[in-house]
């Protein structure tokens, strides 16, 4: 009796391993929830954004309400009213309210700067990396020129010559940050040229544009998002530095950096004037950095498994050093 060992079509169900079908949105949510620290950071950032959006509407009046009787009151006491829980500034304005209003200003400088520099820098970088040749050389030299100026110094000069309006600040910060995205995008794009699936796309006649859009961008995007999140922190601090130096946000507008600057002379007597805005900057940047680290893992299909188990069990399976055992 002979048995047939003929070709048996492979049934998809027997061999496919991996995640069960689930909707995309809930999958991202699940990935976030699994990393508790990142989830906390996301909550914090969410609160910050919420504050920036609705805060000024609620407490705007309080932020400008001058009350000289209550000037420089210490925080953490309800003696002077709920609004002054974080103390008051020399003009008696509520610190809490000012922090909230400053949040919007700070973010409204940092976010547009990051978005503009990310889009412009990445686009040029991917285009240069795809074509190589003279386009790449020109783009890299331009990036080198921009990078060779100390960015803060450049900002100081530009803002001194032109007026330090919010729009100018955004523009100058965006320009100085373009090289970071350009170089990252170019490097990844250039490396992808040698990948087989790009060659495959060329064989069916895909245009440069569609290859960049379909193959280069999705691969480059996670890295760019991480860079953008870290850059967000840098831009926030840069804006704070500029305001600290007096050429950033001008009073009566306030930003966290400006608040730190204004509290400088009172450091010994009214420490809270600089402390709370500084703390706000730290909390926002640290949360953004943590979320960036999470995003880098979550958007990489190869690394995503790290977020699919609770953190406690993870440590048993990460590699440590090998010894001849």
């Amino acid at each position, binding site marked *: 009796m002979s048995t047939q060992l003929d070709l048996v079509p492979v049934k998809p169900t027997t061999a496919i391993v991996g995640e069960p079908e689930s909707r995309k949105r809930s999958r991202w949510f699940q990935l976030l929830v699994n990393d508790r620290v990142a989830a906390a950071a996301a909550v914090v950032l969410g609160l910050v954004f919420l504050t920036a959006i609705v805060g000024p509407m609620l407490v705007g009046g309080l932020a400008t309400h001058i009350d000289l009787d209550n000037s420089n009151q210490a925080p953490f006491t309800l003696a002077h009213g709920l609004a002054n829980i974080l103390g008051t500034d020399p003009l008696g304005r509520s610190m809490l309210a000012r922090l909230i209003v400053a949040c919007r200003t700070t973010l409204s400088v940092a976010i547009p700067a990051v978005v503009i520099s990310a889009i412009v820098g990445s686009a040029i970088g991917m285009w240069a990396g795809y074509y190589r040749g003279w386009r790449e050389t020109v783009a890299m030299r331009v990036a080198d020129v921009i990078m060779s100026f100390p960015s803060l110094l450049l900002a100081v000069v530009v803002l001194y010559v032109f007026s330090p309006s919010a729009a100018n600040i955004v523009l100058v910060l965006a320009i100085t940050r373009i090289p970071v995205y350009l170089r990252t995008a170019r490097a990844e794009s250039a490396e992808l040229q040698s990948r*087989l699936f790009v060659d495959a796309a060329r064989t069916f006649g895909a245009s440069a544009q569609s290859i960049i859009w379909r193959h280069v961008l999705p691969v480059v995007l996670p890295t760019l998002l991480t860079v953008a999140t870290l850059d967000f922190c840098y831009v926030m601090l840069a804006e704070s530095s500029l305001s600290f130096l007096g050429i950033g946000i001008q009073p009566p507008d306030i930003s966290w950096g400006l608040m730190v600057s204004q509290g400088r002379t009172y450091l010994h007597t009214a420490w809270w004037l600089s402390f709370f805005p500084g703390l706000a900057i730290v909390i926002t940047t640290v949360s953004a950095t943590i979320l960036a680290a999470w995003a880098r893992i979550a958007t990489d299909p190869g690394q995503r498994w790290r977020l699919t188990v609770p953190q406690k069990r993870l440590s048993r399976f990460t590699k440590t050093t090998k010894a001849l055992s």
Partner: protein
Amino acid sequence: MSEKLLEVRDLRKSFQVPGKKKLCALDGISLDLGRGETLGLVGESGCGKSTLARTLLMLERPDSGTVRFDGIDPFSLRGKELLAFRRRVQMVFQDPYASLNARMSAGDIIAEPWRSHKSLYKSRRDRDMRVRGLLDLVGLGAKAADKYPQEFSGGQRQRIGIARALALDPDVIICDEPVSALDLSVQAQVLNLLNDLQGQLGISYVFISHDLSVVRHVADRVAVMYLGRIIENGPTEAVFERPNHPYTAALMSAAPTLDGAQRKERILLKGEVPSPLNPPSGCRFRTRCWKATEVCATTTPPSAVDPEIAGHTAECHHPLLQEGSALVPA
């Protein structure tokens, strides 16, 4: 006698290497491919088979020589005509892990060629149906369309690659080591699939492989490449049983076979493949050839035709015509 689908004559391609040196990848390649036929391309690393594959796919432009595809020279086409022409030649890649974009689902990967050829399947429904049809054709179920490459095994990924190559209904598929990265049992499945598809759809294959037993099984004709030239060309059985060129004989001898215990003395070549940057003068193989004489260093060897088998040629001053000994057991 099938009409020639693909005719290549005297194809040459060099690359500029840093340091002002020229790397001659293809040095006068001529070959033919008929409809529904499989041409096996055999050679070791550095022989130029990848460059030849890329040139046939119009990913590289040759320096000189002619390519006639169904009578048309594809390198003279531009724009829309070139795009339409690209549909006729497709490729299955060697590495099933690197040739699929891990961020696209299997269905997207297979449908990707149509994005550049929008006129083929206009509605989404048509495209989905065609994707399902292709997945069935290669032995994966329609459900596979939503899964990502990392959820498949190596053999299944290669099937996705084959489905993608079939998406544009090509006339020729260039298979670059399609089964080298797969396990033995899976190799057999994929080879059977390629065979079936050829029977059903009448596709021609250019099958590049270093595995001689696989080539023997799939190819009608075999061309052996060495340092940018085709040094032997002929019907498969002829080339395997009665190799005319010493290099082919050495290749056959070096490749292990299951009944190898019965083989005769193995030919061990001296040294390694010379660098393509500095190929030997005259016959390229002379530095390792045991039959080399002075004439081999001075003149390029002519194309010697095997008197007994039509279409079997080898470039050698001293071809193994007289010996005809079976260096590989029958």
